[in-house]
């Protein structure tokens, strides 16, 4: 079980706990899925990145921040921006075994993102993420901020 960190929790109409930030894994028959939370889009994107990284490398405590990359992405809406953002991390993990653990988002709107990400090359990944899907992807406003459920093809 992978759990993110949460500053507060309340029950809401979604049938689970709304949270301000973090992530949790949800059941999926064939693939892997994460529910992610953030008080705003910036935090939601960071939660998603941390959650997906946690699937690939469950213990990131030893991963340094020696590699730095600047990222700039455009998308048609916030859901697409989320998929683009995570797909960027999938690409670096697969082609160069680069895992990122620090995410500095400098500028974000629903359709544009500028960020600097920090991490390092690892020797092995526990889980290969083939792709980030749009399956039932919708960023929902909750009493605590934003949440979404993302399904990964593994």
């Amino acid at each position, binding site marked *: *079980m992978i759990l993110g960190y949460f500053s507060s929790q309340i029950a809401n109409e979604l049938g689970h706990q709304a949270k301000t930030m973090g992530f949790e*894994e949800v*059941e*999926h*028959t*064939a*693939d*892997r899925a994460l529910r992610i939370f953030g008080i705003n889009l910036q935090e939601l994107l960071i939660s998603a990145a941390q959650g997906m990284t946690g699937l690939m490398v469950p213990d990131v405590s030893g991963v340094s921040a020696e590699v730095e990359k600047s990222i700039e992405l455009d*998308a*048609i*809406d916030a*859901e*697409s921006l989320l*998929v*683009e953002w995570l*797909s960027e991390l999938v*690409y670096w*993990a*697969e*082609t160069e*075994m680069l895992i990122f653990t620090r995410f500095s988002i400098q500028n974000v709107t629903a359709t544009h993102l500028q960020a600097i990400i920090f991490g390092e090359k690892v020797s*092995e*990944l*526990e*889980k*290969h993420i*083939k*792709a*980030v*899907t*749009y*399956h*039932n*992807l919708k960023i929902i406003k909750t009493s605590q901020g934003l949440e979404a459920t993302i*399904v990964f*093809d*593994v």
Partner: protein
Amino acid sequence: MVEIHDFEQLDKHLFEVPVSFRKDMRVPARFYADKELLKGIITDNSLQQLINTATLPGIVKYALAMPDIHQGYGFPIGGVVATKLPDGIISPGGVGYDINCGVRLLATHLNQDEIKPYLEDLATILYSNCPSGVGKGGNIKLKTGELEQVITAGAKWAVKRGYGAEADLERTEEGGYMAGADPEKVSQRAKDRGKGQIGTLGAGNHFIELDVVHKVFDESTAQRIGLSQGQIAVQIHCGSRGLGHQVCGDYVRRFQKMIAKYGLNLPDRELVCAPLSSPEGQDYLAAMKAAANYAFANRQVLAFHIRRSFEQVLAGKVSNHHVFQIYDIAHNMAKVETHQIDGKRVQLCVHRKGATRAFGPGSAELPSVYRDIGQPVLVPGSMGTASWVLVGTEGSMAQTFGSTCHGAGRTMSRKKAKKTIRGSTLREELEGRGIQIRAGSMSGLAEEAPSAYKDVDRVVEVVHGAGIAKKVAKLRPIAVIKG
């Protein structure tokens, strides 16, 4: 959720959710099952996903699912959707991220007694020669511009480079390559992901397996295919690796804009699509074919590594260590095919996502060696359980656009499998049953435990009973190699 009272039973193994179930359905949704499989099918969202595909523009007759149906993303796994050309759609999500994931079956002239003294060594050498696991690159270095040749010519490229024989191509779906692939429609990122992975297995549910032909159900067909009881065979299950994953992802993202452009009303954004006749549809088709060719080439190079392994371990020790090809099939693909619809020959785009083409006897698309018996269908079981060789039938042509099942189908989530099953315990249990296991990851092994899957025998009985494939032979595993 779809409840039992929402669908009706049309035949012993065929069920239908009527078009009246949901306003946006264009056609009914049909699926194959028996009572036991039905219990599993209604517990996850797979029927909801099947019904969603029944809303796609241009869909003909019905949205279909094979008995190994289980929850995926967008399309259910086990789904078959045919759309009418020229305006019917093509959906990248309807093919899936692992474009041309498929199975290749090789066979030998050896029996279990002959191979037994060398089985452990053979499993070890296969694991060493066939790169597997997350992030493991291949041992084939491509020259500048060679990746473009791979994705243009598929397994033909590999044979030309010395990784197989012409006879392999004849016994591969599409002759080992799809014409019309366009490297220009494949992104640089996809090429980056694929360039170092030719001849690699990857991780997840992909594997190489040594099997014994356990039982033959149709002697004459088995003989024609080249299988007999007690014979050692080898299966390869893998696909287009990172290149295919990136191609699908690129086009699912690009196609999000098609929702507005073509006025699509979709219940799930993963179902994004474009008319096949549109520039976007044509671009995706050309890129999908390129990824499909990568997968054909990948399995061809892995077959070469397997032959090399047999040579290394068995040369001079057994009478004949030759490894020959039975067939190679795709189970994630969209293809333009002509089918009989209400008495007329109609051109369709048939999406098979976790479903296998199963053309019946006489189909012009089949190689001459198999044309009179129907297409061989390769159905891998879950790890440690049986696999099956079937052939396509007239029934599959009439009922399912020439399609049938592709495997066992999951019932348990990966998360739950890892929580309830220990990889090391599973390994001991399988080895106790005489199955050699060579795996890079114990947690990966646990995720693929047999208990996380449906009973493949039951799935096969349903397709056989429904007449959408015919049983030929059952294989039993003796060694499993995976990442």
